[in-house]
């Protein structure tokens, strides 16, 4: 048997199993104690001075044909020394003779072991006897002169020649003698006897290298190593915010995204980067400059805020993810299951996205410049009817309604004739005149009272007049570096994002400073700080705002020209909105120009943390960290008065507001890492955290500013004239606050690198709940088994690594507004004041119930079970699989209240149970064919959402919102169905003729005449003969069957190409957008395809004066929402490295290139922001842009 140093750290069982034993029982026990107490410390080092002890001891001894063992025993009897040896090595030395004499112990031992292949070494009072030729390094007897020693030194670099800090260098077989490379990647090992050795170099994220080297006498052998980065995903480091672990050791479901992937995704918001990259994470881009994407991890877990928690350099942040500079990101880790998210307690329920920013790397300071320019344009322009097409459809309407074919705009012929001029007047109907009419004489023109519009018979394309190509640019300069004692990284970025809606923009300046220093070995101080300033201008929009800007674009007749004959913007003031001519609201373009010129938002932000780490004892770290988020903001808006505007105000007004929010948290943590001889690895911590959130804002509006130059516009320059006419100053403001206290801890234990255990517990206190319900406790337990490390797996060579893992744990959620555990009263003038004195001057202030409190509200809890595996197969195929069951109970919702409770806002109650069950699979493979290197990543995930329970005492179902033109809610959540299932009628075609209708009518006498020929035939679900509210049913689910992403990277010589596809499948979209755009009487292309006796195959119902029921929510509006998108295609060229630069790469890229979908709306990627309105499209979203980029990466 090969000699090993006594295994001090071994468990007792292992000790007895070993052939080694300690002569003394006491020693054995103390050895164990030492092992347990101080195993991590290097206590086995024998100083040379210790050997003195042997010479000082004299003993009297005589041996007659005795064995070496008995000689040792006799020595033990006379001295305090104890022997340790391997029986097999010692047993065959028998028949030793030694004359009786007084011996110095050292001489005695030398004599005894002379002519044997044994040597010895003294460690404390133990004399360790071992076979000398097997163990050169320790064969040096204490008496012999120091042997000639050599050493090894060298430098470890990666493929790019950059140093690999902290790589480990081990001399194989030399008791794993080794060291770690320093920040420059350099290492040296001294005190090595001449000979041949095997060196093993390994680093996190790199393939391990072994190499034979020879060490000569008194020479230092120099040997450099270049490490290849590993395709083994298990080598990744998982940063959880509170701790770091190798993915190998993680027992939960985690995914990571590297800086390379981030670099391929030219987006504003961190959330958008995740789209399609990670199984189980669904992302909906919001469009629009500076917008933040909607990110959902594993479906909807709650009724309220479903946003995941972002942790940036250990600081939890909410919102503000569009302030982070993607180029600063080193890695993104997505924590999906409770084994780790439980660490975040209340905030981790929706999953956690951990972002680590770049820090300085050792070596010469590095400078990098990254920039791109991007040309962006709308993916799709909706087609609009031409004015003539619309007029014809309108003529059909008149016929269908048995009305006379006579209209002031279109004449009274059998077909409509488009007018030449429209004259808007402030009062009275517009004049509609022919080309040569004297009323259209330009000399009569007056902007305020007589605006002459020459109609646009070709049709004004309002979409193209406001949307178009835009240019976005990003420039980032960063410099970073590090020494042994400190590191730093600075980066500055200018990002100017112009929107495809002309005039909208988002400009952001960011500065990041990351530093860390180690003034002493036991002390570390550092900070990560982001300063950001942005400004922008946008229009009111949002998916659920059909009356918003994009909704208005459909609502405006193409017959109306952009400008009147005097080149002033046309306005519909004076042209009433009617079926004949959709004048719409104010001129969108005029409104847009005014809003974008005079309405701006300014946001600043400081996000960061500072920390102190103290390591009083090796392995024990005390950390205090303060994380802050501070967001001051201001905005201003000027609304000018235009005579041509429909809602023209007689006076202008200026609004300015500002506010700030701050969110600090202070975490104090004690952690301890213990490693006992690579057998036991324990890392544990306990922490205490306090958090406080504050918000305060105020605003004012002043009317009638006499000048409108931008510099003049401020709140003191208004001219309020009276208190009754509406021209008075108004002020507003508000505040918000919340706080939390948490105690939490975590123990990770790894046995033999095979058996992994983790336990997390967190107790959270929240200010949101009443005195009795403030605290919630959220534990998690997880285990992992690296089965591939087991002997019985050795013969399965294609499995390189396989870890099975399982976790059960819970998280809480308190994402509701503050103070709702008691009734809230306010003094809202509109709903509470009353002229109690009867003075007819001013109403007295009253107090009324504003929001009903519920003292019983408590933590919403979600409990997740997660089972999965991580594997490396065939050396470079990474597979990660998870099955999960996420149960949310005590879900906080605001169910509708009985009318008996009055008009106040409904109280929150813990009333629902959700479940989300699903599977996730991620696969990655990398290899090369000759010079062609490739790697492929694929992920697919599915989840099934189900409402399991709704507190039936309160309410049987939760409805979504309803929007005009229907008063029905479009979605309903009910037990046994996915949350937010679409709810409405089933449309069984169209009544084709009177007979068809009559037949149906006989069976359903309750039908109103609205359901006559040409109208939608709604199914009588409950067979009561009446079509009414009770015939609504579930008509689709917004939840996708699965979501997937596919990424292929190819590198050939200096050329790289990456393709990224992303898709969603099996979901339905409630395309209520059609009720505004492609519908009888609307102006989108297709609106003309209405039913008539001559067009019986029409998709749309007849348009007549009885058309109100057809638009009710029905299966007609439910469409397949599946899509596959070629998200990104990037082609790059890297110039060969030379003296002038380290790195130079240029690339071109297309983003959002092609979308395959059957969805007829503008884009299938609609916001799924709210759980109760998921999957409903109102077409109000800012359209997503297609981008073409040119970029450069340059490094010195």
């Amino acid at each position: 048997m090969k000699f090993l140093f006594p295994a001090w750290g071994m468990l007792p069982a292992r000790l007895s199993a070993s052939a080694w034993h300690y002569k003394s029982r006491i020693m054995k026990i103390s050895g164990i104690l030492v092992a347990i107490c101080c195993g991590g410390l290097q206590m086995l080092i024998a100083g040379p001075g210790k050997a003195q002890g042997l010479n000082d001891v004299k003993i009297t001894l005589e041996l007659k044909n005795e064995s070496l063992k008995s000689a040792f025993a006799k020595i033990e009897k006379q001295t305090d020394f104890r022997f340790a040896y391997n029986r097999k090595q010692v047993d065959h030395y028998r028949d030793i003779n030694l004359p009786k004499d007084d011996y110095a112990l050292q001489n005695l031992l030398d004599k005894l072991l002379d002519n044997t292949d044994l040597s010895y070494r003294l460690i404390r009072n133990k004399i360790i006897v071992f076979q000398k030729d097997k163990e050169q390094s320790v064969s040096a007897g204490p008496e012999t002169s120091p042997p000639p020693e050599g050493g090894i030194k060298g430098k470890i670099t990666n493929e790019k020649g950059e140093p690999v800090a902290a790589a480990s260098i081990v001399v194989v077989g030399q008791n794993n003698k080794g060291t770690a490379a320093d920040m420059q990647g350099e290492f040296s090992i001294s005190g090595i006897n001449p000979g041949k050795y095997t060196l093993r170099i390994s680093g996190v994220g790199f393939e391990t290298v072994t190499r034979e080297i020879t060490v000569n006498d008194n020479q230092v052998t120099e040997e450099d190593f270049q490490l290849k980065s590993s395709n083994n995903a298990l080598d990744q480091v998982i940063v959880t915010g509170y701790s770091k672990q190798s993915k190998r050791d993680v027992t939960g479901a985690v995914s990571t995204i590297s800086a390379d992937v981030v670099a391929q995704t030219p987006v504003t918001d961190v959330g958008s980067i995740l789209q399609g990259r990670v199984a189980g994470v669904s992302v909906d881009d919001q469009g629009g400059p500076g917008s933040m994407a909607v990110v959902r991890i594993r479906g909807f877990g709650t009724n309220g805020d479903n946003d995941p928690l972002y942790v940036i350099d250990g600081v939890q942040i909410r919102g503000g993810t569009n302030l982070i500079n993607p180029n600063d990101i080193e890695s993104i880790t997505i924590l999906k299951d409770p084994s780790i998210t439980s660490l975040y307690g209340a905030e981790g329920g929706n999953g956690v996205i951990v972002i680590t920013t770049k820090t300085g790397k050792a070596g010469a300071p590095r400078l990098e410049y990254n920039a791109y320019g991007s040309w962006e344009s709308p993916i799709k322009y909706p087609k609009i009817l031409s004015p003539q097409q619309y007029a014809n459809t309108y003529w059909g309407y008149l016929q269908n309604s048995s009305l006379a074919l006579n209209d002031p705009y279109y004449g009274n012929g059998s077909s409509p004739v488009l007018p030449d001029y429209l004259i808007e007047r402030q009062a009275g109907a517009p004049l509609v005149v022919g080309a040569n009419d004297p009323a259209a004489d330009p000399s009569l023109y007056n902007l305020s009272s007589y605006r002459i519009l020459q109609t646009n018979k070709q049709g004004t394309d309002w979409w193209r007049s406001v949307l178009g190509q835009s240019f976005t640019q990003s420039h980032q300069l960063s410099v970073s570096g590090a020494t042994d004692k400190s590191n730093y990284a600075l980066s500055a970025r200018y990002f100017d994002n112009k929107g495809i809606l002309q005039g909208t923009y988002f400009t952001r300046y960011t500065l990041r400073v990351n530093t860390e220093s180690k003034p002493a070995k036991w002390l570390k101080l550092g900070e990560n700080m982001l300063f950001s300033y942005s400004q922008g201008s946008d229009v009111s929009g949002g998916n659920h705002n059909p009356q918003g800007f994009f909704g208005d674009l459909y609502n405006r007749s193409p017959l109306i020209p952009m400008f009147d004959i005097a080149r002033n913007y046309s306005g519909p003031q004076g042209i009433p909105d009617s079926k004949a001519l959709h004048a719409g609201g104010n001129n969108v373009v005029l409104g847009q120009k005014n809003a974008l010129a005079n309405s701006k938002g300014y946001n600043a932000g400081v996000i960061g943390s500072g920390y102190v780490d103290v390591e009083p004892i090796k392995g024990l770290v005390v950390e205090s960290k303060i994380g802050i988020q501070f967001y001051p903001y201001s905005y201003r808006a000027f609304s000018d008065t235009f005579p041509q505007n429909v809602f023209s105000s007689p006076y202008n007004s200026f609004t300015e507001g500002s506010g700030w929010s701050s969110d600090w948290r202070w975490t104090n943590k004690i952690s301890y890492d213990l490693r006992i001889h690579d057998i036991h690895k324990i890392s544990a911590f306990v922490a205490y955290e306090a958090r406080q959130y504050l918000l305060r804002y105020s605003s004012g509006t002043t009317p009638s500013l006499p000048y409108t130059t931008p510099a003049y516009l401020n709140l003191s320059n208004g001219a309020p004239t009276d208190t009754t006419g509406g021209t008075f100053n108004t002020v507003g403001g508000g505040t918000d606050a919340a706080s939390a206290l948490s105690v939490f801890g975590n123990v990770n234990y790894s046995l033999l690198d095979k058996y992994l255990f983790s336990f997390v517990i967190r107790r959270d206190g929240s200010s949101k709940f009443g005195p009795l319900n403030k605290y919630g406790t959220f534990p998690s337990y997880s285990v992992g088994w690296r089965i591939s490390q087991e002997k019985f797996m050795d013969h399965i060579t294609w499995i390189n690594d396989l870890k099975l893992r399982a976790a059960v744990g819970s998280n809480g959620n308190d994402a509701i507004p503050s103070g709702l555990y008691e009734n809230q009263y306010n003094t809202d003038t509109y709903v509470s004041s009353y002229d109690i004195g009867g003075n007819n001057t001013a109403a007295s202030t009253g107090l009324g119930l504003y929001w009903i409190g519920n003292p019983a509200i408590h933590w919403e809890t979600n409990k997740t079970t997660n089972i999965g595996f991580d594997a490396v197969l065939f050396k470079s195929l990474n597979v990660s699989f998870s099955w999960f069951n996420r149960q949310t109970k005590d879900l906080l919702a605001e169910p509708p209240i009985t009318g008996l409770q009055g008009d106040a806002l409904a109280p929150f109650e813990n009333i629902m149970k959700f479940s989300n069950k699903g599977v996730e699979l991620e696969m990655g493979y990398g290899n090369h064919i000759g010079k062609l290197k490739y790697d492929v990543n694929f992920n697919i995930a599915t989840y099934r959402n189900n409402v399991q329970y709704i507190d039936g005492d309160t309410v049987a179902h939760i409805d979504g919102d309803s929007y005009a033109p229907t008063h029905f809610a479009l979605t309903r959540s009910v037990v046994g169905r996915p949350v937010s299932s679409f709810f409405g009628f089933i449309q069984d075609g169209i009544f084709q003729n009177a007979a068809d209708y009559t037949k149906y009518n006989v069976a359903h006498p309750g039908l109103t005449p609205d359901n006559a020929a040409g109208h939608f035939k709604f199914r009588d679900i409950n067979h009561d003969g009446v079509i009414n509210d009770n015939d609504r049913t579930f008509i689709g689910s917004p939840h996708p069957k699965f979501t997937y992403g596919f990424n292929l990277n190819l590198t050939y010589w200096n050329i790289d190409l990456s393709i990224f596809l992303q898709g969603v499948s099996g979901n339905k979209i409630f395309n209520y957008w059609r009720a505004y755009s492609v519908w009888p009487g609307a102006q989108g292309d297709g609106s003309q395809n209405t039913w008539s006796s001559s067009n019986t195959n029409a998709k749309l119902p007849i348009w007549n004066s009885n058309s109100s029921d057809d638009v009710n929510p029905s299966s007609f509006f439910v469409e397949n929402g599946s899509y596959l998108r070629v998200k990104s295609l990037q082609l790059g060229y890297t110039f060969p490295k030379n003296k002038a630069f380290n790195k130079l790469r240029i690339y071109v890229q297309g983003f959002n290139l092609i979308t395959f979908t059957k969805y007829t709306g503008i884009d299938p990627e609609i916001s799924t922001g709210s759980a109760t309105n998921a999957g409903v499209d109102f077409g109000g979203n800012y359209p997503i842009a297609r981008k073409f980029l040119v970029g450069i990466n340059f490094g010195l």
Partner: protein
Amino acid sequence: MKRIFVFATGLMLLATACKKNFLTIEAPNVVTIEAAANRVGVEQLLVGTYHDVTGLTIHSGWWSTSGTNWVYGDITSGDAYRGGTNQGNDGITIEHFQTQSSTGFLADKWRSDYDGVSRSNTVILTARLAKDMTDDEKTSAIAEARFLRGHFHFDAKKMWNHVPYISDSVAQDAIDNGNKVYQSLSNEPDIWPDIEADFRFAFDHLPETQTLKGKANKWAAACYLAKCYMFEKKFDAAKALLDSIIPRLMAEMALEKIPRVSRTGWWTILMTILTGQQKIMMNRYFRFNFL
């Protein structure tokens, strides 16, 4: 190093030190009932309750919940014409007698009436808690609140007949035991006696005159009580009460205690004078909708 360790532990303890009140945060932008449990607060709660007589609430405006009930009275009776062709409009649905369970106006109206009830009960419960009010002041405030509570229940009873009565003890129960209390209420019992009791209490405890003109006084309560008797078909009681009201009002008017009043003021006075039957007549001829 030890010192640093102690320092760090100290930091943690410091963080713990502020624990006591750290998790108590007042609801932002609003007050809780503790802040209103005093003379000023009760007065403001009362003003808020009077506001509900207008029907202008968070959820609706002058249509569905207007205190004049013009949609349910004037439009349905043919006194007013809704107009317009928008088929989906609830006003038209009501005009056409096609009201369904999903007709939003009715839900609004119900909610508005019971909002008034809820606010009345809040006044009653809060007045009892107030420390700076005398017992007489409390009783007076409670009497006003009961007058209003009677009014809102009366309105609901008139609209739907089968409606539940929400007493202040039910409201207290809901505060203590959560809002589920409301689900257990029945609308089967006839609530006229409860309404009558409210007006009776108001009649017994309200002052003869109020300094603020908008407030209900003893005689306003008397009128409403009489109206209540009429609806209950307790004609004798109504007659007796009205006989005591009318001369008094006439006398007051003669003494010009009621100064020149606006048109709406006159209607208010008329409203308190006229009997139910007279009101119906007035409604018919003058297109006004009395309570």
